């Protein structure tokens, strides 16, 4: 079977791998004893998680007054963190769904880990709406269900309820997509395992056999899940932006919010994928599977989305001025030059200026610069949400109500706790499941493996020198 490959493509799998070598390489991390680095990282992440849990319990026990929010600033670190985590959770589905539809083969090296990251980030995000209501024990009031209170229903006209539906749907569909992709790989691990691990992976692999009909259905399922996840992922951050855009707060009620939020979400998500993948490929020695091609491709996405975000920032400023509406103008003046100017400049520097280094190929292909920049973008995007939320609220219509806000130790602790949840889950994931999709890598091996790409390139060169003309002559006869 000949595979058509564009000759300009660089190989995505290096080291002349065979199918068996791929299995060995990608299962290895689940089969050996954890390394010291993993154990130390797990202790740190678990510690952060425990402290975060303590702070959440503290919040519920003492009440929301343990946070430094006030009547003017009703949303602070809680919703900033919520939007930040939800944004990070967008890269996984983008990579696995949109890049699948676009037939981008480089998605294969990173999709599994990015999808896992999505799920963990959405868990972290979903925590905040739950605890920020204060009375967490009645949080099920969010859901529309026949109840004895009337029945009283939630307000279906409210973007906050839309958000509940969007995030629940996003979480569960991402989970299905991720798990369905994992099932064949769990079967691979199962067939190599002994004893307890055999039982465990037998359970996790759902009885996968690799039958031709099952593969056919599996591909059909993955393709349709990708097709419906694509509008889903765009809808989620659109709806998150509606939480702000449908209000009447200057600086929030702008029509640019949905595309601006979606671009920002992809931007921050890819940055977090880079942060994690650069560490993962180093620690698990996956340099042959997560190559510089993958890193460069993701850096291009970061450059594009970072620039879109930059254009959105400038558009907001221009429209504020052009609107002639003093409150809108003041909101943006306040953002850039008010008491929280440092957050605005942090946001501008990290999100708009710093990714511009990726116009230069040398930086796009540098591990060091990529890692540094991914951290910059993570920080910058956190600042963006803080600027939009806290800075805007701090200066409202009534100057007598103007206020300032800095988080209490409880709020900082919960944020650290979500980082702990995220990394704890990720560390468990790299031990339990193959971080790179084994079956999908094997599937693209003959199209993207270095030993095949070189052969294809030679063929393509020959074809270019001797173009096939027999088709035309056949038609003339």
């Amino acid at each position, binding site marked *: *079977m000949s595979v058509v490959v564009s000759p300009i493509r660089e190989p995505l799998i290096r080291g002349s791998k*065979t*199918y*068996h070598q791929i*299995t060995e390489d990608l299962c290895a991390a689940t089969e050996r004893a954890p390394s010291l680095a993993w154990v130390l990282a797990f202790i740190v992440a678990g510690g952060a998680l425990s402290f975060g849990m303590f702070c959440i319990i503290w919040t519920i026990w003492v009440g929301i007054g343990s946070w430094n929010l006030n009547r003017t600033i009703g949303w602070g670190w809680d919703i900033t963190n919520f939007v930040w985590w939800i944004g990070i959770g967008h890269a996984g589905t983008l990579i696995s769904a949109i890049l699948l539809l676009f037939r981008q083969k480089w998605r294969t090296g990173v999709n599994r880990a990015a999808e896992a990251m999505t799920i963990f980030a959405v868990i972290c995000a979903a925590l905040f709406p739950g605890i920020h209501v204060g009375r967490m024990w009645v949080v099920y009031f969010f859901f529309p269900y026949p109840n004895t209170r*009337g*029945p*009283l*229903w939630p*307000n*279906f*006209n*409210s*973007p906050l*309820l*839309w958000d509940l*539906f*969007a995030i*629940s*749907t996003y979480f*569960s*569909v991402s989970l*299905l*997509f991720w798990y369905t992709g994992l099932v*064949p790989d769990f079967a*691979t691990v199962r*067939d*190599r395992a002994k004893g307890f691990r055999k039982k465990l992976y*037998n*359970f996790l692999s*759902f*009885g*996968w*056999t*690799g*039958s*031709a*009909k*099952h*593969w*056919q*259905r*599996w*591909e*059909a*399922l993955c393709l*349709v*899940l990708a097709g*419906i*996840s694509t*509008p*889903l992922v765009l*809808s989620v951050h659109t*709806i998150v932006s*509606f939480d702000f855009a449908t209000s009447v707060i200057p600086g929030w009620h702008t029509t640019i919010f949905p595309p601006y939020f979606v671009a920002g979400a992809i931007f921050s998500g890819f940055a977090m994928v880079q942060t994690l993948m650069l560490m993962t490929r180093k620690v698990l020695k996956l340099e042959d599977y997560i190559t510089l091609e993958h890193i460069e491709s993701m850096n291009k996405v970061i450059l594009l989305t970072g620039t879109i975000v930059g254009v959105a920032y400038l558009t907001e400023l221009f429209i504020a001025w052009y609107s002639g509406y003093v409150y809108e103008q003041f909101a943006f003046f306040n953002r850039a030059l008010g008491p929280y100017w440092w957050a605005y400049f942090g946001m501008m520097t990290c999100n708009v200026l710093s990714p511009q280094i990726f116009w230069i190929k040398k930086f796009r292909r540098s591990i060091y610069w990529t890692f540094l920049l991914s951290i910059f973008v993570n920080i910058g995007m956190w600042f963006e949400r803080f600027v939009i939320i806290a800075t805007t609220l701090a200066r409202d219509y009534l100057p007598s109500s103007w206020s300032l806000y800095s988080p209490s130790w409880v709020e900082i602790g919960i944020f650290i706790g979500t980082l702990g949840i995220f990394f704890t889950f990720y560390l468990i994931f790299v031990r339990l499941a193959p971080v790179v999709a*084994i*079956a*999908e890598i*094997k*599937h693209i091996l003959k199209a993207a493996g270095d030993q095949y790409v070189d052969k294809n390139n030679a063929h393509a060169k020959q074809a270019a020198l001797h173009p096939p003309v027999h088709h035309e002559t056949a038609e003339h006869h």
Partner: protein
Amino acid sequence: MSSHKEVIYGLYNDEEELLSAVKIANDQHLPIMDVYSPFPVHGLDGLLHLSESRLHQGGFVYGFIGLLTGFLGMTWIFTKDWPIIIGGKPYWAVPAFIPITFEMTVLFAAWGMTITFYIICGMGPGVTNPVLDERISDDKFCIAFNKASLDGNTGKVNDFFRSTGAAEVNTKVF
């Protein structure tokens, strides 16, 4: 899986060998029971006369049920069960119902299709299906014949495996 099924299977090292072997099996009218591979082999569906999966049609139906559930549910609640004026909007505020209707469509389509997939494949949490060879999920491509459907003509199958370059031929009883 029924009990006491005797399966003869051959393992190939490469998907291209597998594809040409399946073609030859078709030419020789050998009744292939199933083909197993470590990853989806494109071109196999046609050779095995597998019809296109109808999962996506199921997905459409599930999605449509979700759409109706979401939209009609909100309509009933806000016009019949508990009409309430919110922000001066009409009871039946259709544009405001669109986001939730969309999410419900996606939710139902995804869950419906995935659950259907596992049921029709005979898979699920804790299900154990017989594995012919543990290397099939690694690097081996397998063609399997049910001995019962060969009318005792096992010699022909063995010849077929030998001539098509199978790396191994084995028999397994379930």
